[in-house]
């Protein structure tokens, strides 16, 4: 049994315990998954407040809907589905406001960043632009990039979470990475920027 399967089994056990009336089991699930959901939401919005809110809403929803989960070993995928849907809902709710801020990000500073003498500042600005570039991606590409690149999910799992064919997921990732490449080129960001310590 590989570590992933072991983890799924432990989640399944905790879900069964919770269904059996042990509320502490749910808190253990929260402790196991909180960081991952928070990271996902943080990368999605680039905001700690939004990430915390989405994380809380995800677990509250999971708490109330856990009885509806058919395959207890897929708790993680199910949780990501909830978190992703909440992120999309939040984006719809304040879409216009966010869209405006994304538009503003498109005019990113270039020469100032690349000519800065301070390596640390250069690296920090590069990291900020990295996140800005990610936020500029279309939502469906951004979700796939985050899930694959940072959450380390398999294509099969992402397809299951998004309820899309695997090829669609791969295609979105390909176009997402290609778009990021173009953005980095247009902002004169290359991998040397991040090699400064």
């Amino acid at each position, binding site marked *: 049994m590989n570590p992933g399967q072991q983890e799924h089994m432990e989640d399944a056990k905790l879900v069964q315990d919770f269904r059996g009336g042990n*509320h*502490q089991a*749910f*808190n253990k699930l*929260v*402790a196991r998954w*909180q*960081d991952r959901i*928070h*990271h996902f939401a*943080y*990368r999605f919005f680039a905001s*700690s407040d939004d*990430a*915390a809110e989405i*994380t*809380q809403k995800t*677990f*509250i929803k999971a*708490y109330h809907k856990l009885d509806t989960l058919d395959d207890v070993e897929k708790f993680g995928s199910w949780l990501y589905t909830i978190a992703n849907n909440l992120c999309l809902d939040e984006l719809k709710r304040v879409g216009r406001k966010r869209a405006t801020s994304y538009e503003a990000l498109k005019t990113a500073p270039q020469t100032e960043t690349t000519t800065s003498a301070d390596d640390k500042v250069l690296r920090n600005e*590069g*990291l900020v632009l*990295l*996140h800005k570039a*990610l936020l500029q991606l279309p939502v469906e590409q951004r979700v796939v*990039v985050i899930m*694959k*690149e*940072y959450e380390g999910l*398999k*294509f099969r799992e992402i397809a299951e979470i998004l309820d899309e064919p695997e*090829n669609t997921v*791969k295609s979105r*990732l*390909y176009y997402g*990475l*290609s778009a*990021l*490449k173009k953005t*980095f080129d247009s902002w004169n*960001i*290359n*991998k040397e920027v*991040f090699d400064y310590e």
Partner: protein
Amino acid sequence: MNKETARSLFMDYLYDELEQDQRKELEQFLAEHPDLQNELEELGEVRSMLEHLPVQDPAEQLVMMEPEQSGFQDWWNELIGSLIPKNGFARAGFAVASLLILFVVMGAFTKLNISVDDNGFELAFGDKQEVLQQGVTAQQVDYLLQQMKEENALMVADAVQQVQQAQDEKLEQSLINFADYIEEQRINDLQMISSGINNMEEVYYDRFRQTDQVLGDLIQTVSTRN
């Protein structure tokens, strides 16, 4: 393999989800097509840049669905769990016994007093008070009945008198109304008779005048002829 097929395998290759034989096949194809090799390397470079994206951990556990039970609560739950029998029948007996004990304890605190005598069942709380009067004698009952009868007779007589009075008043009012009506009719009749007499007088007066005039004319005619 063509270029499109090779591109469709890029993501699996980059994220190491490609079967070994497919991987080798793709690598051979890329060796023959440097443009594709370059494209794949650029995508890999993007990946290596994305790795640097910082992330923030939540400061604390953001969700706690139920507060952890205190030591006392755990102890209490264990105690209750150990006291209550598991068997259904025994559990019912335990519940009945608990209720009885509760009843006795509550009775002691509230000074519950239960008694059954000739007068019936009595349930009372607090100190028992002395009964001031047990009941009434037969004589008193007779006296009360007599008094009630008298009061009833008086009430009936009073009611009859009131009804009689009301009827008398109604009759009197009816007679007054009838008399007024008769008087009104009489006045109308007299007015009609008077009016008729006046008309007759006028008619006779006119006839007398006409007769006088004819007689005057006749006398004048005779006088003229003579």
